[in-house]
């Protein structure tokens, strides 16, 4: 049986499973639609949250980004898992006690103002939109590989599937489907890693192989040393050094962490368990399940880097492995024979072509600059590919059995579907419930609310698909990183202050949110879309990490404005006292 048939069978089976589960656990009331009735066990909720959490960006793009960035790629690993710690000990137990199902609901009530609710809805919509864009790109990459079509057509196929899928089940259906999706993802991600670890390091546990020796080349050398040497020979930064300043690294990691703690679609997940103690337990499970994949990602990144270079660099184009043609056909890998010798040469930023035609590696970027090379000499690299495809190309490189590759494809689709479905649910309820029913048109019936939710999810998918075809930044992981910056500068500080300070007034909170997200968005748009010069970066912080500064601005503005505004009413202060008492949360309120 050939690879394509196997892929279709595995994906078909996984879809049948999801649809079966979704139909079996269909929501029978609006309460079940939004919060699954509050009766999901901590373990199941933990798994579902992990699936919701592990987006296509994580699943498809992260290992590739680490492979290229080396040490610098750790920002995603620490940022996303570390943020979960913040989320668990600072946010969700208190929000669960408060008991309303959406983040704008909390902000609207805590800051006793329609305007605050409105600003929160806008932030939620912005954040979810940016996130879905990243997902659509991921879906596109998978489908283009699956059907052998361009990414653009892949995005459209994916958008259609997500639309029908997300409209089906409501929160209850989604929760149980996500449990199944997590299982598919975990196996899909780790099984190829086992095979590759054995081939390269002789140790079948990838995490041990990573810290062990590289044995595939005959003589055993420490694995990371091998990687460092390869990188240096080709003119890249050492794998363990990466190419990012400490300030930038610090800010991006902080923005990712705080952004995680402000993600509306993850916070909503914890309303599906029965009380505050179950929330804490559920969060433990979630992080454990996430860690299974996050501890494997850096090993896959490192292994695939070694494999890619040893299988392609310095090889005659006609002799290139069979899988190379597969990725070439869909335009995700490309070979441009600059010196017409028919040999694939892969080089990094420090390499250049000397006048006699040989490849030389400069000792530093300045030394290379001083040579005043022509454009062709300065960039002799002949192989281009996006980091998004590393995870998918990886098993081919390592000769993993075809069924494991098919499982991986099913896993990629599960990752994109589960996150997109969760996001669309939050996005559409934000618009239909928080915006329309609570602010614009209070007399809305349940039926109209659902219709508006459908319209909202259709429009947002269409917009997301457009940006999935014309992505604002080259990599999925980067697009998603912006979204975390926005969440870090808006929701995180406002929720934190709302929970821990009972004297913060609505004026302070609104001003803080507006300034925080306004500054961050402006900075990202200026440097990413209006071709701002990287040399003008504030303190050398790239747009990915600017959310950290936006967050500080939010805090400062909130407290300054608070000093000049009246204190919140007594019942709001009492409410803040109450959410710190863990017992008596009862069932999550429906709307």
């Amino acid at each position, binding site marked *: 049986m050939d690879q394509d048939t196997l892929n279709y069978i595995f994906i078909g089976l996984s879809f049948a499973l999801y649809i079966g589960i979704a139909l079996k656990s269909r929501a029978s009331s609006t309460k079940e639609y939004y919060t699954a009735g509050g009766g999901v066990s901590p373990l199941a909720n933990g798994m579902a949250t992990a699936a919701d959490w592990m987006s296509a960006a994580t699943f498809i793009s992260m290992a590739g980004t*680490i492979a290229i960035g080396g*040490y610098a790629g*750790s920002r995603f*690993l*620490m940022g996303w*898992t*570390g943020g*979960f*710690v*913040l989320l*668990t*000990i*600072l946010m969700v*137990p208190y929000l669960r006690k408060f008991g309303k199902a959406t983040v704008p609901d909390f902000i609207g009530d805590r800051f006793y103002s329609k305007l605050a609710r409105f600003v929160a809805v806008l932030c939620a919509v912005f954040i979810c939109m940016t996130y879905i864009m990243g997902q659509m790109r991921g879906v596109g990459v998978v489908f283009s590989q699956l059907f052998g079509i361009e990414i653009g057509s892949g995005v459209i196929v994916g958008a259609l599937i997500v639309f029908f899928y997300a409209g089906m089940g409501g929160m209850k259906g989604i929760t149980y489907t996500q449990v199944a999706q997590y299982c598919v993802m975990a196996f899909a991600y780790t099984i190829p890693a086992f095979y590759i670890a054995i081939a390269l390091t002789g140790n079948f546990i990838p*995490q*041990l192989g*990573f*810290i*062990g*020796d590289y044995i595939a080349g005959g003589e055993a050398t*420490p*694995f*990371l*040393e091998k990687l460092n040497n390869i990188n240096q020979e080709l003119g890249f930064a050492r794998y*363990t050094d990466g190419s990012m300043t*400490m300030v930038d*690294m*610090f800010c991006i*990691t*902080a923005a990712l*962490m705080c952004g995680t703690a402000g993600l509306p679609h993850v916070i909503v997940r914890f309303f599906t368990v029965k*009380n*505050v*103690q179950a929330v*804490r*337990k559920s*969060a*433990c499970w979630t*992080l*454990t399940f996430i*860690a299974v994949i*996050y*501890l494997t990602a*850096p090993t896959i990144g490192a292994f695939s880097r070694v494999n890619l270079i040893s299988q392609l660099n310095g090889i005659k184009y006609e002799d290139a492995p069979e899988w190379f043609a597969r990725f070439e056909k869909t335009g995700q890998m490309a070979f441009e024979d600059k010196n017409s010798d028919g040999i694939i040469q892969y080089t990094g930023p420090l390499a250049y072509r000397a006048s006699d035609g040989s490849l030389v590696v400069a000792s530093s970027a300045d030394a290379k600059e001083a040579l005043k090379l022509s454009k062709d000499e300065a960039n002799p690299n002949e192989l281009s590919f996006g980091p998004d495809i590393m995870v998918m190309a990886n098993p081919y490189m390592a000769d993993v059995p075809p069924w494991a590759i098919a499982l991986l494809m099913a896993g990629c689709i599960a990752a994109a579907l589960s996150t997109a479905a969760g996001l669309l649910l939050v996005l559409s309820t934000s618009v239909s419930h928080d915006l329309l029913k609570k602010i614009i048109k209070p007399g809305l019936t349940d039926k109209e609310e659902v219709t508006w939710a459908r319209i909202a999810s259709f429009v947002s998918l269409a917009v997301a698909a457009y940006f999935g075809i014309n992505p604002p930044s080259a990599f999925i992981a980067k697009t998603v990183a912006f979204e975390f910056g926005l969440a870090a500068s808006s929701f995180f500080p406002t929720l934190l202050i709302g929970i821990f300070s009972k004297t913060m007034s609505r004026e302070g909170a609104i001003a803080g949110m507006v300034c925080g997200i306004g500054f961050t968005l402006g900075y990202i748009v200026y440097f990413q879309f209006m071709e701002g010069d990287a040399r003008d970066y504030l303190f050398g912080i790239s747009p990915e990490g600017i959310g950290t500064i936006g967050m500080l601005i939010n805090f400062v503005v909130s407290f300054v404005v608070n000093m000049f505004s009246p204190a919140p009413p007594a019942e709001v202060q009492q409410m803040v*006292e109450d959410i*710190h*008492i*863990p*017992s*008596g949360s009862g069932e999550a309120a429906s709307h």
Partner: protein
Amino acid sequence: MEKNNARSHRIACLKLTLTLLAVWAFVSFGCSILFRPWMDTNMPAIGSVPFGFWMAQQGSIICFVFLLIVYAVCMRRLDGKHGFSEE
């Protein structure tokens, strides 16, 4: 009495939260970013991987999982002690 109880629970909870956050910041921002060069040279390597690099890619994540387990266990005890348990 009820009010006082809530207050002492809140203070104990805040102390635990701050302690956990200190560990959290130390393993991620401390070991893996700010003091990473120092950690690489002065701490024992994990297998063949320098300590700081290992912390950044593996160690910090393992620590995070333990932090959450400690949080869940300690908070359950705290709730029980102050009579807020629901189990």
